[in-house]
């Protein structure tokens, strides 16, 4: 490519780069800075990570919910994406519409809708009681169950889209070839289709897990103060207990754990390939 043309491209992305530097990178460094200077300089805030059982508990809750959410979302997303890749053009358009529909609704509305559905007098509990399947209402919100339900619902499109996009690139004849060579339908799936859809699975897993780690609104509403995840605790530290040092420390650890999980995945797969840079 000619050098002068390349320079034009740099100018085109310059505003975005500038915006990122001023409003993203700079505050990020500030967060890192506060975490080692407030209230006193040093790594005192980080020592809390090791020493305070409350923070241990919050982190464990966060990880448990994230792992559970990611596992359920990716499996369910895989099933939806697989169905989308197999059906005809018309059904596919409708399925895609339904998947994206939840994207267009505000996360707040969705979380409240789940609260309405799952609360003690909600549709699910009254329905089950009417059917005589339960005598006492089940506790479906203000616990980890409710949080996971809401989060899976939110994350599902994030899993479906990369998996589906990967699946459209799989040559359908390969499965036929496997069948023709003697593989049962399940054998053809496990030996051929599943390995070929692995890049989509991995990028969906990363995407959902990273999103889940820092998730705020849904766990805050559906957890109802009973299930506290790390980002809710950060918010509390910032605005209620006004412990900025602790808040920025937690925010930084959140960032590091995202980077750490990416680094862990990168040991096993080529991330550039997964995210389409190669």
């Amino acid at each position: 490519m000619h050098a002068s043309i390349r320079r034009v491209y740099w100018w085109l992305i310059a505003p975005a780069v500038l915006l990122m530097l001023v409003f993203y990178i700079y505050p990020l460094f500030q967060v890192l800075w506060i975490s080692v200077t407030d209230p006193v300089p040093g790594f005192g805030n980080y020592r809390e990570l090791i020493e305070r059982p409350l923070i241990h508990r919050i982190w464990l809750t966060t990880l448990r919910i994230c792992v559970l959410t990611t596992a359920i979302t990716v499996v369910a997303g895989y099933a939806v994406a697989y169905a989308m890749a197999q059906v005809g053009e018309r059904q596919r358009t409708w399925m895609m519409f339904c998947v994206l529909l939840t994207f267009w609704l505000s996360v707040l509305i969705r979380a409240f809708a789940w609260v309405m559905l799952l609360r003690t007098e909600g549709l699910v509990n009254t329905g089950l009681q009417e059917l005589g399947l339960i005598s006492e209402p089940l506790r479906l919100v203000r616990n980890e169950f409710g949080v996971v339900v809401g989060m899976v619902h939110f994350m599902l499109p994030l899993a479906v889209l990369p998996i589906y996009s990967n699946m459209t690139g799989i040559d359908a004849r390969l499965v036929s070839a496997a069948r023709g060579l003697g593989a049962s339908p399940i054998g053809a799936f496990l030996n051929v289709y599943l390995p070929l859809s692995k890049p989509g699975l991995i990028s969906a897993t990363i995407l959902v897990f990273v999103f889940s780690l820092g998730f705020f609104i849904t766990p805050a509403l559906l957890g109802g103060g009973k299930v506290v995840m790390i980002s809710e605790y950060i918010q509390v530290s910032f605005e209620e207990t006004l412990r900025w040092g602790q808040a920025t420390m937690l925010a930084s650890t959140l960032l590091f754990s995202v980077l750490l999980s990416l680094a862990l995945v990168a040991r096993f797969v080529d991330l550039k390939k997964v995210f389409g840079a190669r």
Partner: protein
Amino acid sequence: MTGRSHSLALRGLSKYYGSLAAVDDVSLDIPSGSFLTLLGPSGSGKTTILMSIAGFVEPSAGQILLDDADITTLPPDKRNFGMVFQGYALFPHMTVADNIWFPLKVRGVSKANAADKVRGALDLVQLGHLAERYPAQLSGGQQQRVALARALVFEPALLLLDEPLSALDKKLRADLQWELKSLHHRLGTTFIYVTHDQEEALSMSDEIVILRDGKIEQQGVPGALYEKPATRFVADFLGKSNFLTGKVAATEPGRFGYSVGDLTLMQEGAPVHRRVDGTVLVSLRPEKIVLAADRPDTVNAVPGTISAFNYYGSTYHFQVSTEHLGELVATTPAWTCAVEPSIGSAIWLGWQPDASVVVNDR
């Protein structure tokens, strides 16, 4: 790795897509150990027939018999047929060796136990040195050979080939035609081959089935099909042909005359396929026309002028305008060409009554 060879029969096979018949009442006997080619243009139903045999397409009617056992409803993985797909369909995430191991793996053979067979199959297609490569690292011809090895390693009852050479360049295609034929000869497995390439069909097959609109148009050994096409379609599809239309004039035992304008030509055989207006259609192959500067001593001869010619190294192709027969195409070996190849020069075209053949105009 020669398994027992099997025969296959199709009985009234049909496949409808809505009201459209992709395959229309096809019956066929494929003898054990033969190399049979299904030849036809796109949409003739040849691939649908192959996919029905493989088990990927469920026939709307009819039966498929393997050695008299009905396999019509058997799923593809239970048929034990080898198949080479168009575009090869190699598994991109497996090495060459693992691709070839695959059919054995799904039959419960461990990698260690399969090693000898995999090696044997690789040697069969002369690719032993590429076992650890991935398909994307191979050339088209090498991928083709891997697909063949994979389809043969489990000693299938039949080998099905769906346009296996269509993605290759001309020279490689010619080389692989030799290889396929010698492979067939060595293994003795029944090969069923689908192509739209008449040259491939002629060069390799024991028998060719020409399909048109889902029906069998004509079948036979390559030589018989080429020399005695039954219809205009076959004469045109298998090789090139000039078509002459004339009114039957005088019939003698074993031959007859037909007139085109005030010209009378002689044709061997009987004036069959006569149309309502008393005319017949005669197919004349370009290479059976004698080109001469003066009137040749053939029974049939017409004068004409060269309107175009192409030089192919080994042959000349001429387009010749004639007063009575319109444009005719004639080919001749270049090194014995008896006429001056220049546009506008006057030449003679001649042929014997047995050089051409009467065909059905359909």
